[in-house]
């Protein structure tokens, strides 16, 4: 059954099966995106609950002009961004730094390098990035969000997002190479 058919059926009959179908279909992916933004599993779980409550309370506003998945993920990211804005420690994501990035000539690191990392290496690299950098990488490569959409969600222009991603890839590469050089030195004595 298509998403829109389930939405219409839920609106007409409020059947719990419809709710369960949509929830089961999207809960995991919504949670994963919440983890991307909030970086903590417990916060991501709370956010998932809020997101689905909001989705089903506002189902009447969904007109089917976009895909249901697009609509629900838009609510997901916007709710997470609101949570981040409220958290005084983590306002960096929406701070002005991205609007005027420093004029550095970082090398162009292809996506391939990041894609070919082992999971543990990637995890280590992500831990050493700051919140903006980590979130951008995860939105782009884990969640598959387009740069235009990232820019819209964060209220930034596309070129600033592209530049930040470029710098982040270069930084990730340096962290990865530094880690591997240290590992090689330790191995050889």
């Amino acid at each position: 059954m298509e998403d829109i058919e389930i939405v219409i059926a839920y609106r007409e009959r409020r059947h719990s099966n419809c709710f369960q179908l949509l929830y089961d279909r999207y809960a995991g992916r919504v949670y994963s995106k919440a983890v991307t933004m909030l970086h903590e599993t417990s916060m991501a779980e709370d956010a998932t609950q809020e997101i689905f409550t909001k989705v089903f309370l506002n189902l009447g506003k969904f007109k089917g002009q976009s895909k249901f998945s697009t609509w629900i993920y838009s609510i997901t990211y916007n709710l997470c961004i609101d949570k981040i804005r409220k958290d005084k420690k983590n306002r960096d994501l929406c701070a002005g730094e991205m609007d005027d990035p420093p004029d550095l000539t970082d090398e162009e690191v292809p996506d391939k390098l990041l894609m070919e990392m082992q999971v543990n290496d990637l995890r280590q690299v992500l831990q050493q990035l700051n919140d903006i950098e980590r979130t951008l990488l995860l939105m782009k490569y884990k969640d598959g969000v387009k740069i235009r959409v990232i820019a819209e969600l964060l209220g930034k222009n596309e070129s600033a997002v592209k530049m930040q991603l470029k710098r982040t890839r270069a930084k990730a590469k340096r962290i990865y190479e530094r880690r591997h050089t240290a590992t090689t030195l330790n191995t050889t004595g």
Partner: protein
Amino acid sequence: MNAFLALREEDLRTFDEARQLIVRERVESSLKAAEFLGNVVELFGPKLANTLTIMAGGEVKTEKTDEDGYPKGNDIADDGDEPYGPGYINPQ
């Protein structure tokens, strides 16, 4: 599978069936609470509004009275005269 997709799979494994169920029950509970509140407002909202209107010295129009305060109903003839008696046959 690249490392980012592996991270996504890990997220999905973390958010296992048990945790999904707990979150789903909380969502259902929130939706039921919202529905209950909506029903209460729908039921008592007009009555509360009428009460406040009367307390402020206004008059309350009900569906059972017209603008002049006469009762509405099937037993009032359209021209405002007294109701027709039993057995009345409308010549029209």
